[in-house]
């Protein structure tokens, strides 16, 4: 497309074709000893159900290890581990620690390497903190790192307010930086080259034009679409890039995080609410064109609708990403379950095909989010044109 040398074209085509395959490069042993804890959980559960002490079979241990592997890929983490090797006893982790920022009466800032991948108790200004293996949160403990639990098994230690830069936040910052550099470069290239784009950003020019001509203008209208263009563009590329990063072997799962999709949905809701014209609220509370009793019934339903629409935005993005990741990870774990020359390649092939589908879903979910946001904005700034037609007819 934009490259002219044949070998380079071939290399890029090969990279794009093998992109889904590299998502299989994740380790089977995670970095916070969740596997060991999960096997202990499985052992205690089997004790309850069978009522007698019995040894864990190899199958149960492997099953628990798989669940922990899948869960670890979906959860956030306080350090950035790329992969681990070296077995369960003394694993070697390749990655880097991230800063942990806690507010617990005073500000505590330290590197997450003090936690030693969830095994050690970190000490900071006299307080001791430890990561709980079951939910990955930081709790305040005593010097030995004991967790007090209530009857149901929930931890009752005090929790400091956690402002740390976790893996997800770090990836959001990286993607933000990428977006900024990419599109600032594209914008500057217009100035230099007389309104023709040059550079890597010119792959995105048709996409930007598509968002303007086919998403923004049809839904919001010629008069008001410019106000919302920056938000729509940001949302589209942000979600698209985050979804794609989730498919790489880095093991990050950012949009599959309810908090992140919730904040995107909340921002959409705030923009809709605060830029809405009077007609918008008029349509919600006093829907024109229906008999009066219906108007009273429709008002609470419409009001609920304003909340449910951003809520569905959040759930849609979150569920699509999490479901995709779970299925992919389960298929890859299935490879190790079968351990046979027929079953394992088949599940690998299935995982490969599913990864291709996930790439499509990444783009599609970004497009759907942007389009629905544009739809809601359009509804908010819709011009009032109902009564004029009736007025004209009465005149004539």
């Amino acid at each position, binding site marked *: 497309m934009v490259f002219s040398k044949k070998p380079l074209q071939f290399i890029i085509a090969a990279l794009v074709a093998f992109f889904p395959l590299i998502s299989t490069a994740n380790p089977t042993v995670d970095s916070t000893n969740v596997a060991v804890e999960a096997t202990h959980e499985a052992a205690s559960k089997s004790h309850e159900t069978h009522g007698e002490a019995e040894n864990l079979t190899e199958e149960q241990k492997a099953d628990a290890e798989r669940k922990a592997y899948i869960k670890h890929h979906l959860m956030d983490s306080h350090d950035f581990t790329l992969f681990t090797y070296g077995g369960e006893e003394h694993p070697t982790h390749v990655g880097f620690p991230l800063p942990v920022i806690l507010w617990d009466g005073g500000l505590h800032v330290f590197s997450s390497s003090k936690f030693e991948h969830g095994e050690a108790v970190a000490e900071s200004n006299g307080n001791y903190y430890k990561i709980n293996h079951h939910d990955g949160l930081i709790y305040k403990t005593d010097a030995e790192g004991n967790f007090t639990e209530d009857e149901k098994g929930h931890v009752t230690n005090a929790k400091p307010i956690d402002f740390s830069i976790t893996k997800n936040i770090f990836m959001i910052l990286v993607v933000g930086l990428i977006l900024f550099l990419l599109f600032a470069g594209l914008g500057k290239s217009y100035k230099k080259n007389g309104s023709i784009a040059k550079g890597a950003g010119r792959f995105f020019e048709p996409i930007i034009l598509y968002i303007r001509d*086919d998403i923004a203008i049809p839904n919001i209208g010629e008069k008001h679409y410019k106000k919302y263009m920056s938000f729509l563009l940001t949302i589209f590329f942000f979600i698209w890039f985050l979804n794609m990063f989730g498919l790489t072997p880095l093991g990050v799962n950012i949009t599959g995080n309810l908090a992140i999709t919730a904040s995107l949905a909340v921002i959409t809701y705030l923009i809709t609410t605060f830029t809405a014209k009077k007609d918008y609220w008029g349509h919600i509370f006093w829907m024109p064109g229906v008999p009066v009793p219906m108007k009273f019934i429709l008002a609470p339903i419409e009001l609920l609708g304003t909340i449910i629409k951003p809520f*569905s935005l959040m*759930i*849609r993005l979150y*569920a*699509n990403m999490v*479901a995709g990741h779970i299925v992919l990870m389960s298929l890859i774990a299935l490879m190790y379950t079968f351990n046979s020359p027929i079953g394992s390649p088949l599940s690998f092939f299935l995982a490969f095909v599913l990864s291709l589908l996930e790439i499509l879903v990444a783009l*599609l*979910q970004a*497009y*759907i989010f942007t*389009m629905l946001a544009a739809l809601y904005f359009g509804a908010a700034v819709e011009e009032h044109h109902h009564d004029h037609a009736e007025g004209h007819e009465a005149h004539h």
Partner: protein
Amino acid sequence: MEIPKIIGAGLVVIGAGIGIGKIGGSAMDAIARQPEATGKIQTAMLIAAALIEGIGFAALFAVN
């Protein structure tokens, strides 16, 4: 997982499958009638499919 949950999840998937299948079928009929409108029809089909899938996922999460 209890039986009612399993039945509920199955019903949700059936509903989503039927809905998206009908949309796909109508889209193919429309494309057959007017091949030059393929782009617009494909876009509309994907949008409707994603919306139905959204409900499907939300219901699956509510079941679990």
